[in-house]
């Protein structure tokens, strides 16, 4: 039926479906973002007071870092409240606070993510193109390699893009966050808590970033060559399920309609599927 629809009709149908999901207040986002932060913060006194063993706290801290990114990502797109709306303060609060376990500034995430949306898969202008790799194992390896400074400490990835778009002010955020993160680790280490600092923050942060880059950036865009509206990301079936893969099986819905909350992207996908097929989107596996 959709095959017979004109370009304008397809666009209209798609927008009507998207609009149905775009205005819901995503209550789960502030609960998730702030709750996750509180759990991570509570690990520190629980471990220091020997209430919680470090071997249990470490995997929890890893999950906290893995889970801290998406609430901030929802805030980047103003899902809780758009600029000028009454709850905008909550939107920004969730954005700033939920990223703390990752030691990443919200403004940096906001600016670079918007550049990603503007230039998906562009070899020079997409800040996330550094996750492009040959396959899943290479993606994990590249996540760690791309975090290295490189010869001469050349700016690339987020730093390169921020300089390119003239947002050096955001680079200051990044530098200050890094300094605070390192200073916290040094202070903990020299007060006898180096192992705790390593297993509650330093290692979980590295593991969490690899996980986020794999599922959020690499998997939905791989091989990351196409730049069209309907083929710059794909629909795919994850072996670990939708929740464990950060809901990214439906990532193209997010690129098409960034105002749809993450939890609603599967529903929007099911409703839009005939339109997406008519548009020639990529479907890997039998995604329901």
């Amino acid at each position, binding site marked *: 039926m959709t095959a017979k629809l004109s370009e304008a009709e397809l666009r209209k149908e798609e927008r009507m479906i998207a609009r149905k999901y775009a205005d819901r207040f995503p209550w789960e986002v502030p609960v998730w973002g702030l709750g996750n932060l509180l759990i991570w913060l509570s690990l520190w006194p629980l471990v220091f007071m020997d209430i919680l063993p470090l071997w249990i706290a470490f995997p929890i801290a890893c999950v906290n870092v893995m889970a801290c990114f998406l609430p901030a990502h929802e805030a980047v797109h103003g899902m809780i409240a758009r600029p000028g709306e009454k709850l905008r303060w909550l939107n920004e609060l969730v954005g700033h606070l939920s990223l703390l376990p990752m030691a990443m500034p919200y403004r940096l995430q906001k600016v670079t993510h918007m550049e990603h949306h503007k230039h998906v898969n562009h070899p020079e202008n997409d800040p996330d193109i550094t996750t492009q790799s040959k396959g899943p194992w290479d993606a994990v390896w590249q996540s760690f390699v791309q975090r290295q400074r*490189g010869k001469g400490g050349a700016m690339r990835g987020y730093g390169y893009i921020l300089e390119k778009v003239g947002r050096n002010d955001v680079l*200051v955020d990044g530098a200050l966050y890094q300094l605070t993160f390192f200073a916290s680790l040094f202070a903990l280490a020299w007060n006898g808590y*180096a192992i705790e600092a390593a297993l509650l923050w330093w290692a979980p942060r590295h593991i969490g970033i690899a996980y986020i880059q794999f599922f959020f950036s690499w998997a939905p865009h791989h091989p990351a060559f196409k730049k069209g509206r309907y083929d710059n990301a794909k629909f795919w079936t994850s072996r670990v399920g939708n929740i464990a893969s950060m809901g990214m099986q439906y990532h193209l819905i997010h690129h098409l309609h960034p105002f749809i909350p993450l939890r609603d992207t599967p529903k929007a996908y099911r409703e839009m599927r005939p339109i997406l097929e008519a548009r020639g989107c990529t479907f890997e596996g039998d995604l329901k």
Partner: protein
Amino acid sequence: MAIVEFLVKNILHFMPITFGFLFFGPLFAQIMDRLGWEQPLGFSTLTLGLIIGGAWGIFAFFRGSWIWARP
């Protein structure tokens, strides 16, 4: 921007060395303490931790990578 240039050039630029000494040094020492090592190779655990951590940091600084491979 003056502040970011100062931070990057003077503090973050040398961070691998600083990190090796100030974080990995005490970290390795405390791991050795937990393992019950006393005077490994004739050094105190902190001295040996600082030697290993510091050497790794210096390597990372000049190589541009903690893990040999670099972008």
